[in-house]
């Protein structure tokens, strides 16, 4: 009886673990060569072409792709550092801290610009700005806001129209949301004023960009703030109804990053995957790219790309994070 209970518990927890993945997919399952396990926060649909082109070139290699949230990517890797070979995430701060803490392997053979590399371990391969995405229908007859200030004014002007119809990341759950929020707060006080306005309108909080764009298309929300414009752009069927606005006052651009884990057993295959990823995606040489390529350094300066530097660890400090979340909750959760 006791054994049975234990067995059931084990099975249940295994199922639970399995269910926790947003998505899993194995590419080139028939291959007998190296097996690469990629843990990622990027939706399978957006990342699949990169893996497909890789297994086309390396038909021996089998690739398993696990998708979960940015915060979960960080948590799982810290729990089981040897369960994955490659880590891909949009939360630059969490990625940099993982590398700083020694979870990454240095790849001396990879050539990549200095500003898009950290410790020859962490490699940036996209540049994706945080955008305001609106449902055009909600702004019919009204000017479309181009800056945060104009968005604040638009929301204040028609509070009834936007009540319960604004959305943004739940920074407590989402690593990327937290990164955008903290970088936003560094840049200007406008962020806190906007959050206050959104909080008063009964803001809806989301875990992921994809969900926000879903709700925008259905009209459940009219405005999403700090969402990844790239996700909206990747869905051409909704482009007509949605407008992606890059705030012209101070746009914040995130770079999606990848690294090979220190504990990997497939170092050379993992390194060649990173090389492939950078060659096809980073500078837009590949075909059918669904993610925006890395911009040149000049453009990166212009777009206020978050730099890869140890300062990214500042807001991950427990005391600092506690303080920031307290302020955020005070502003957003109003009754």
């Amino acid at each position, binding site marked *: 009886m006791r054994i049975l209970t234990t067995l059931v518990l084990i099975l249940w927890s295994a199922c639970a673990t399995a269910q926790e993945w947003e998505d899993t997919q194995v590419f080139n399952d028939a291959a007998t060569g190296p097996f690469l396990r990629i843990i990622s926060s990027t939706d399978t649909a957006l990342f699949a072409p990169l893996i497909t082109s890789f297994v086309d070139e390396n038909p021996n290699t089998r690739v398993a792709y696990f998708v979960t949230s940015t915060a979960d990517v960080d948590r799982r890797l810290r729990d089981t550092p040897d369960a994955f070979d490659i880590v891909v995430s949009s939360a630059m701060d969490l990625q940099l801290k993982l590398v700083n803490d*020694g979870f990454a392997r240095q790849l001396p053979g990879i050539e990549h610009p200095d500003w898009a590399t950290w*410790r020859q371990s962490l490699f940036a391969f996209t540049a994706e700005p945080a955008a305001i995405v609106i449902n055009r229908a909600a702004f019919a007859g009204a000017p479309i806001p181009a800056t945060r200030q104009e968005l604040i004014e638009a929301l204040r002007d028609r509070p009834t129209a936007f009540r319960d119809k604004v959305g943004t990341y739940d920074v407590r759950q989402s690593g990327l949301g937290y990164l955008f929020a903290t970088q936003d707060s560094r840049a200007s006080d406008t962020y806190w004023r906007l959050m206050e306005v959104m909080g008063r309108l009964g803001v809806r909080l989301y875990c992921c960009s994809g969900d926000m764009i879903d709700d925008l298309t259905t009209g459940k929300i009219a405005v999403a703030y700090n969402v990844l414009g790239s996700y909206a752009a990747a869905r051409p069927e909704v482009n007509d109804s949605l407008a992606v606005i890059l705030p012209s006052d101070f746009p914040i651009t995130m770079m999606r990053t990848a690294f090979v884990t220190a504990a990997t057993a497939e170092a050379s295959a993992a390194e060649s995957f990173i090389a492939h990823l950078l060659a096809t995606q980073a500078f837009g040489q590949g075909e059918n790219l669904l993610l925006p390529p890395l911009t040149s350094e000049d453009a990166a300066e212009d777009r206020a790309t978050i730099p890869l*530097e*140890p*300062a990214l*660890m*500042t807001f991950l400090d*427990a*005391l*600092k994070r506690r303080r920031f979340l307290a302020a955020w909750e005070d502003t957003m959760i109003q009754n």
Partner: protein
Amino acid sequence: MMAASPTVSGSLRDRLMITLIGGAAVLALLLFFAVRSYAVQVAQQGQDSILAASVTAMLDAAAIRDGEVEIDIPYAAFSMLSTPSDDRVFYAIYQDGAFLSGYNDLAYEAGKPLGVRSFQSGDVRGAAVRQVNASRTLIGANRRTEIQIALAQTQDAQSQTLDRIARNAAFLGVGFFALTGLLSLWASSVTMGQLNRLTTSVTRRGPQDLSPFQKPVPQEMAPLVQSLNSLMGRLDQSLSQSEDFIAEAAHRVRTPLATVRSYAEATLQRVKREENREAMRSMVRAIDESSRAAGQLLDHAMITFRADHLERETLDLRALVEDLVLRLTPIADMRDLSLAVAGDADVPFAGDAILIQNAVRNMIDNAIKYAPPDSTVTITVNAAPKPVIVVEDEGPGFNTDEIATLAGRFQRGSNAADSIGSGLGLTIAQDVATAHGGHLHLSNRPEGGACVSLQLSS
């Protein structure tokens, strides 16, 4: 006469070079290590001051709010720790020794005395780090609390900088060494140049020039030149003494012999008894032989002396030979011989006129001595291929097995029994030829008679 080679022990130039270059190498090494250790110090100070600034910024952000410690770490605190090598950063915040946030495997090491910032080098997660420890006391409403921060950074960028500096320091050292090497080469060649100049001016002197050196020389060489000058002074004195001695000896020997001979001749005229006359004739012959021998000995001594100090002047060999023939014709007439000059009209040659005259006179003397009466002695002067003077007679010629040894000093041919001579004639001719770089060649003419050629090639 060959100058004896001096015994050589080591080289002044080598010794100078080794001292200078060895010194330069030691200095270059010292320079390299000094620059590197200074760079290590500076780099460490640089990293320490950035770490100190960062930890100060963090401590400044600490405050007690509602009885709870809050540390709002400024973004710049970590941003300033960015390095070109993307060094890793570790930190830990403690409150009165209790861990608050950061890396709990990074221990806080209290400075001595307490409250003073302390630096240390250590190891965190397998990486070499430089760590700063600093603390700050916060005073709340009803308590005091101490915030302690340990901040560590890896040293990749620093070691890269140090590698670069070490490389540059090495280049600097090598450059310094090369430059000093060139300088010491130059310095030693300048020093040696002075010695070489003195050597050249000694070598270039004419054979008679024994005057003291007048050219200015460096102070260190003055004693050497002074010794040289005094040596040459003594040499000059002793040379003029021997020249005087030769002239004096010739005079002292020849004059009494001539006097004795003239007395003997006079006595011979007065003596009537045949046996006495015969004795007087023998006496005259003996006197002649002595006189000739003395003359040849003095000639030979003079030639030996002059050959060491050959004085060359351009002269015409043909004219020289004709002049000699003119002077020797009376002697030849006494023996019913005729002297004939043949060959080229004009044979210029740079040589010592006195020596060549001496040699040719001895050669003609010899021919006159051995030639039979009523024959001709032919002297041929040729310019090509090399200047040569050939004396031929119609006498008995040389014994073929004696040709090789004949020119030795005091050697006379076995067939010269009844001729006067000391045997030095051919030796003198041979010495003169050698002094001019040529040689004396003896042979017999196919039709009979001796043939002596004086080759004067130089």
